[in-house]
């Protein structure tokens, strides 16, 4: 399957705008579940305002949140796809830039030292583009995630040691949620990365935080720990917006990798309640949009 780079560019543009406007169905269901179980009236009210916002955004065709985030594009490329990888990345970048200029979106991206904003949502190494490969032959898939800064500013890494064991993991996750309080725009998806090297561990945490609700860690021990921690963080009482309540997190998600005999790395990355993502799949029958 040959990939048309102009179609990639247009799709990258479209995905950024779509992601900012419509929340995936799993997140909407997550809200339904939280509001059913919430026992604190003020927290109920906060959740209902968030749900109203989702409706207003769709009705008025507006962005859910003013934070256009750091744009992230995750690509999966099938084995039968013919594409110039370098040109593919350039096309994604052009699409991101065009979405920002043409819509127009607020460019939230600046140089880390000069703080200069190019007003394109692009800069050195941004948009973040991850490329992975899959066995499916005629298939190319782009997932777009605008990662908001309120939640991203509360990202944590701890290089624990083996003697500290799983207790260190549980304590660290709980303490990150406590430390983040209302700053992450809870209810959040708490993404936990375990194992790997420090950089891989942080990347795993991001992958976990942006995984659809209802999905589970592939590793059975990881999945059990997800259940345990999901229950635990919602007993902390942080609540929506840090104003108290049962709904601190939609879920705790874990992604894990093998690690060194001397290491026990733990990373936490959170996704705010506006857990935005959009997807487009390129197949022989055309481009299909979804979440």
């Amino acid at each position, binding site marked *: 399957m040959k990939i048309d780079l102009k179609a990639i560019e247009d799709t990258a543009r479209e995905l950024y705008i779509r992601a900012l406007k419509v929340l995936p169905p799993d997140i909407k269901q997550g809200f339904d579940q939280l509001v059913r179980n919430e026992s604190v009236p003020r927290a109920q009210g906060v959740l209902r305002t968030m749900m109203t*916002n989702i409706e207003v955004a769709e009705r008025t065709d507006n962005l859910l*949140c*003013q934070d256009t985030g750091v744009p992230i594009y995750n690509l999966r490329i099938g084995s039968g796809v013919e594409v110039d990888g370098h040109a593919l990345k350039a096309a994604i970048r052009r699409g991101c830039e065009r979405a920002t200029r043409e819509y127009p979106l607020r460019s939230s991206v600046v140089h880390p030292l000069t703080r200069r904003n190019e007003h394109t949502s692009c800069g050195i190494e941004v948009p973040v583009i991850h490329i992975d490969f899959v066995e499916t032959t005629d298939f190319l898939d782009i997932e777009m995630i605008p990662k908001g800064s*309120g939640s991203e500013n509360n990202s944590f890494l701890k290089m624990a040691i083996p003697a500290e064991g799983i*207790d260190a993991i549980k304590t660290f996750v709980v303490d990150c949620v406590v430390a983040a309080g209302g700053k992450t725009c809870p209810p959040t998806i708490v993404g936990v990365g375990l194992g790997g090297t420090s950089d891989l561990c942080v990347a795993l945490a991001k992958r976990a935080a942006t995984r659809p609700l209802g999905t589970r860690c592939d590793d059975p021990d990881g999945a059990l720990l997800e259940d345990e921690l999901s229950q*635990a963080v919602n007993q902390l009482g942080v609540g929506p*917006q840090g*104003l108290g309540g049962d709904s601190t997190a939609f879920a705790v998600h874990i992604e894990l990798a093998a690690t060194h005999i001397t290491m026990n790395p733990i990373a936490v990355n959170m996704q*705010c309640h506006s857990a935005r993502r959009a997807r487009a799949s390129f197949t022989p029958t055309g481009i299909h949009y979804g979440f």
Partner: protein
Amino acid sequence: MAHHELNTPVTEAQVRELHAGDTVTLQSTLFGIRDATQIHMFDRGRTTRFDLRGHAVIHTAPNVRRVTASPEFPAGYAPVCIGTTTSDRMERFTWPLMQQYGVRMIVGKGGLRADSLEAFAKLGGVYLAIVGGTAALESTWIEQIEDVDLDDLNPESLWKFRIRDFGPLLVAMDSHGNSLYEDVRHDVQERRTRVLAGLGVRTA
């Protein structure tokens, strides 16, 4: 738990009538302010031509569209999506914002800390919590971008919005030493011990 309709600017007496847990709906004018705006105002000696005395500021950097200036768009900007950012990063600006500019109300999300609470008590101010991440809704409460200053910092300019029925907002920190965030933090610290015990964590 009273509800207050407030036309900005307000007096110190009006602000001191607000208590944590009350709700407020703002009318008339609201100023948008952000990290870079305040870094430039308080660290780099920039000043604004706006009179902020008695006013409310909101922690924001909006999505806007540049248009030809007209009576409908006096600043040459049409609002696209206007929301609220995390206040905590701007904690150190509460005192100068109130002392030097006379601001009385800060609208934000996630709360401010003990220093701000002290400023609210000493100088007469409040923190009004909005539900973060609900910008589509918030945008419907903004009628117009009336004016803009320090626009070289765009999108972190100092914005002047004309608002209508902006709220309800929750009085989360008042001028009487009360902070809903502090109450929650104390409760969370107590629960933390029980939660860790429930997870079977052996604490030292």
